[in-house]
């Protein structure tokens, strides 16, 4: 019996990188969603109002809650799909890091104001 393509060897802690890749990619995606929502909330009064989940905190409550939900749901889905696989971690990490850097740039107000 042969090991199926991309399936985990017996010790998946040692050989597969899918679980780590899922965590890394979803963290980058979560940061990026937060940055995009922050800009959208700043540009559209309708979106801004819809993001007020807790009035004293204002739209920040919705921006962060939605971003965290997207991050956790993405992570859960990818963890389920990737945990027993070996994936091209370099590409996935590069995308996650690009999303993280973009997020840091987009949240800088002078950049966000360009949109």
């Amino acid at each position, binding site marked *: 019996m042969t090991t199926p393509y991309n399936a985990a060897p017996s010790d998946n802690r040692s050989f597969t990188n899918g679980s780590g890749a899922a965590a*890394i990619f979803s963290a980058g995606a979560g940061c990026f969603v*937060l940055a995009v929502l922050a800009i959208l909330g700043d540009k559209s009064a309708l979106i801004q109002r819809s993001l007020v989940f807790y009035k004293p905190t204002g739209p920040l409550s919705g921006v962060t809650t939605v971003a965290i939900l997207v991050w956790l749901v993405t992570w859960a889905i990818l963890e389920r799909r990737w945990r027993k696989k070996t994936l091209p971690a370099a590409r996935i990490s590069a995308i996650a890091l690009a999303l993280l850097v973009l997020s840091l740039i987009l949240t800088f107000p002078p950049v966000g104001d360009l949109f």
Partner: protein
Amino acid sequence: MGFGGLYLLACSGALIGLYQFTTSSAAPESTPGQERFMRIYLITMVVLAWAAVLSGAYAIYPWYRAAPPPGAVDLSMFPQHLLMASPATIGWHSLGMEWKEHVSWFAPISITMVAFVFIRYGHDLRNHRQLRAAVLVFSVASLVAAGIAGFFGAEIDERAPVQGGNTIQLSRGEAK
């Protein structure tokens, strides 16, 4: 501020620990006790990071952005409006707080991921070079995000409202 300050203090230790644990040339072997300590250290950082952003967003920030009653002249209890009332201080809000309130959330998201990956792979992370690199970069990003938030938090939430002046004073020297 307390949680964020502790988090910033812990960041440098985490970076050194992660580097030592996950770089093959830095530490040939680590004991299970050292690995367990690192796990507890990272979990503590996760708790601190989330405590910092949640207390900041839901306890401090509502006080910061509270709206003064119509016609109010004394804005000393309304920091956002106090800062926005003068062209000399409006930047603390439009740049400082606007950046801080969003960028600070990257710290708990990043460090949660870092802690998960370390707990999942442990010492074996040294065999996953790309994951290890990403974890270290996210750790640095977490430190940067917390540093930005900490700097503006200290300046805005404490100094600017307390002093209530018209100008931003980063330091004050004495004339000789």
